[in-house]
């Protein structure tokens, strides 16, 4: 969207900072296409005024022209003084949107009635523009979404702040760099749960009901039960369809190990991501081994976040 030269120039003009206050130094203003059409209308009016020598047609043209010029001040004022602050970001997975929150603060003003700001939109290139509500509030936090394309840190680039208020004839805008970044986790792959998720030893506390090692009991058949567990003999006797149930003891502490999964690096990371998510959902304790780094097994959202972060940043 922004050419490299323009980008370098912008970096000098509006250096990245987590909080930027807009002023004449960093706000640009230019007529929109509608503004140019409006200019054409004025030219037409002046032509009519000249040919008809009608003073008041001149008057209308001059009044509209003056309104246009005054609108420059209004449009600029609408952005000027606003402070944009990075609040934070929320990570997402590859292919999904990451959220970046930006707070827009209106400066305090003197006067009996404080006038709000209208029709301001912010957004990142490639994302959707969001309206900022500063009409009745002093500050508004907007959540912007950018699609994560690769794992790792996502730099959404400069954020566009623009307004066409009040007449749509002029556009005031700026590109600010709030140094925003958001973490993109690998795209999770939910493959069949591999054996490594389950311990093969007869110890530990938890029982995996779906295990198939040791017989535990018999129960009535329900659709979905494995066919090879059906006790055909009793069925042949005319009794009800029964199944044998087996269970295995699970190793409660799971290790998600990069070396234990198949595929290329990205695919392996994706698989581990899927496993981590599943393990967390099942409230299992799990740890992570990624080459040199190792995260001790634990449970909970915070742990999941740490694990996902390692996965996202592995090798970058």
């Amino acid at each position: 969207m922004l050419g490299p030269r323009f980008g370098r120039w912008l970096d000098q003009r509006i250096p990245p900072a987590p909080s930027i206050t807009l002023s004449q130094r960093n706000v640009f203003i230019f007529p929109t296409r509608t503004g140019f059409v409006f200019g054409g209308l004025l030219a037409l009016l002046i032509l009519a005024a000249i040919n008809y020598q009608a003073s008041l047609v001149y008057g209308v043209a001059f009044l509209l022209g003056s309104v246009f010029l005054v609108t420059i001040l209004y449009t600029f004022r609408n952005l000027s003084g606003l402070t944009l602050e990075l609040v934070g970001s929320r990570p997402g997975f590859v292919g999904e949107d990451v959220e970046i929150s930006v707070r827009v603060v209106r400066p305090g003003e003197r006067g009996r009635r404080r006038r709000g700001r209208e029709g301001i939109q912010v957004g990142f290139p490639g994302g959707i523009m969001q309206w900022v509500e500063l009409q009745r509030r002093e500050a508004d936090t907007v959540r912007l979404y950018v699609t994560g394309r690769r794992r790792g840190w996502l730099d959404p680039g400069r954020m566009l702040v623009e307004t066409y208020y009040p007449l749509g004839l002029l556009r005031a805008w700026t590109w600010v760099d709030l140094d925003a970044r958001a973490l993109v986790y690998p795209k999770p792959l939910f493959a069949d749960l591999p054996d490594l998720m389950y311990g093969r030893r007869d110890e530990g506390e938890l029982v995996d009901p779906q295990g198939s090692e040791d017989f535990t009991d018999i129960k009535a058949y329900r659709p979905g039960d494995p066919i090879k567990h059906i006790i055909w003999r009793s069925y042949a006797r005319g009794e009800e369809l029964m199944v044998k149930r087996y269970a295995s003891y699970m190793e409660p502490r799971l290790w998600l190990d990069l070396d234990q999964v198949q595929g290329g690096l990205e695919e392996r990371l994706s698989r581990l991501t899927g496993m981590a998510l599943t393990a967390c959902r099942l409230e299992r304790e799990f740890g992570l081994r990624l080459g040199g780094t190792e995260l001790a097994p634990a449970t909970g959202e915070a742990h999941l976040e740490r694990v996902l972060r390692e996965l996202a940043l592995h090798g970058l």
Partner: protein
Amino acid sequence: MASEGEAMPAGGARGGLRTGARGGAARGRGIAYQIPRNTLALLMIAQVAVVLPYLLHLSPWLIAVGLFCGYWRSGVYQGRWDYPRRWVKAVLVAASIGGVALTGVSAFSLEAAASLLILAFALKLIEMKSRRDAYLVIFLGYFAIATLFLFDQSIAVAVYQIGALMLVTAALVGLNQLVTRVRPLESLRVSALLVLQALPLTVVLFLFFPRVAPLWSVPLPSSSVTGLSDRMKPGDVAELTRSDELAFRAVFAGEVPPKRALYWRGLTYSRFVEGTWSAAGLLPEWGTAERPAPAAGASGIDYEVLLEPTSSDWLFGLDLALPATPGVTLERDFRLTAPDPVLSVFRYRVTSYPDLGMDQAPRLPDRLRIRETWLPDDGDNPRVRAYARSLMSAAGGDAEALVAAVVAQIRSEPYFYTLSPPPLQDRNSIDEFWFQTRRGFCTHYAGALVFMLRAAGVPARMVGGYQGGEINPVTGHVMVRQYDAHAWVEYWLAGEGWRRVDPTAAVAPARIEEGLNAALSPEDRESLSALTAARFDGVGVFRDLLYWADSLEHRWNLWVIGYDTHLQADVLQDLLGEITPARVGLALLLAGGASLGAVALVLFWRRRSAPRHPVEGAFQDFCRRLAGAGWPRRPDEAPASYLRRLESGGVIGADQAGALVAEVDRLLYNPGAGWGRQDLRRLRSQLRRVRLRAALGARR
């Protein structure tokens, strides 16, 4: 049902990031763009406001179409009706254009153009869907506002149009406000403020923006203007007297001549065909030494005329008027013409020399003599011809005696002056009038006299113009209204030149001495319009009010409407001393900059930061300094949690922190707890200690 959406998901409505996408509906997003209801409501009101004043100038059905379209749109707005289908639109457009053609205005007249503009404005409103449509309707509205001034530039209209312009602008503001909100009052407030703040700059532009002479001289003329015509049937001027519209105002440098001397000469009618006098026919060129020139040292009557639009090029002046405005020419029949048809108030300076003769040479040039003695074939009006010839032979060939005889005849016989004379046949109309009906208006008497003079071989012509006028006591200018329209006679005497004779003075002397009102019979007066009657009979306050309004309008004409190339040159000369492009440009820049600067001052004055709560100020100051020492406060961090973070970072001693947090919380968030200077000073010193410690820590 295609009703306007109430709430829109923000963001989606505005389309993508690219500005280009703003033009149409939010392309490719799957959400059809809908014009904010705010704008729609305002646009419908604005449309009514813009279309209504055209009632006076265009045929009423157009206005009805406009209002119907507005009504239709409001139906769509409320969800009761649908947008028009394609074929309905096609039928509407075709019917409207056909309607304009049938209205009877000529195809290339201002009326036709304005009619089409109003129709486009109205029809576009019903089919308006996208943002671009809305912009188009709004721009058409602006154009319609300006176009009305081609019909009428009075103060009242100007004030009204500023209001209409504010309404249209309010719709434009609404279009750019948050889509989910409907706040027409806020839009109106913003637009009114914008327009008012733009006014000073408008004045500057009006004064300094260079005025240019017309680029091409065939603008569409308006086809309906009240006033004199270059063709005159005897009954025509009587119709004019029913109008109290202003014809022109004249500002005399010195004293205003007496009313009976105010013969405002405008047109000469030399051709008489089928009972109609017309100004047709080419005039010869000026011969050498034929142009009148005032004697050296002769003082004339200086005055300036502000002529209301006539759509024609003839101008009015007192005999004998020599133009003092460049571009105004003196024709061979001693009338004045403007360089272009007068479509807007036209001001020109004139000097009149009452004693200067016209065509004083002993012989009239042949072409002129033929022109001014020409009569239709002998079969037309035979009785009057014979009558004139017999009078002439009785007078011994003396034209003056002939005129005296005719005037005596009018005086002694029962001839009447009336606004509603019996209608006459086209053929033999003068016979019929002179010998049978004997009731007529100024044109009847003037026409009859010219015919008789020509029949007797004397060069004569009918002159049309205005006679008299009313002095406005407020400004001292003379107002001449349509009911002052008059016709009189000029006949040529060898050596003396053209002499004016007014047969109306014989039948109704009061008309010349005191104006139309005095000469009217009671029946005639009843046929006048209410306002004309009021002007005649008005007493006291009402009459004063009319005078006052007129003088206001006069000043408006003088300084605003009449602000043309010449006046601009005069004004700029006074203001700048010398008119050079650099000076004008500089003045435009300085004055424009000053008026914009004043607006900027108003806009940004309030923007200085508001006085803060002293505790808040002290704390924010503290935060700013600590940020410099490497401990910035996060935007979402409450003061207490910030201090706690500082504590865990070792900037604040654990012993200190608890007290400080409690203190800050108490002072900032407990309005009930009063605090004095003492508290503030203590807080400041506490914060200063923390700061110093942080600074030391940073150095280490």
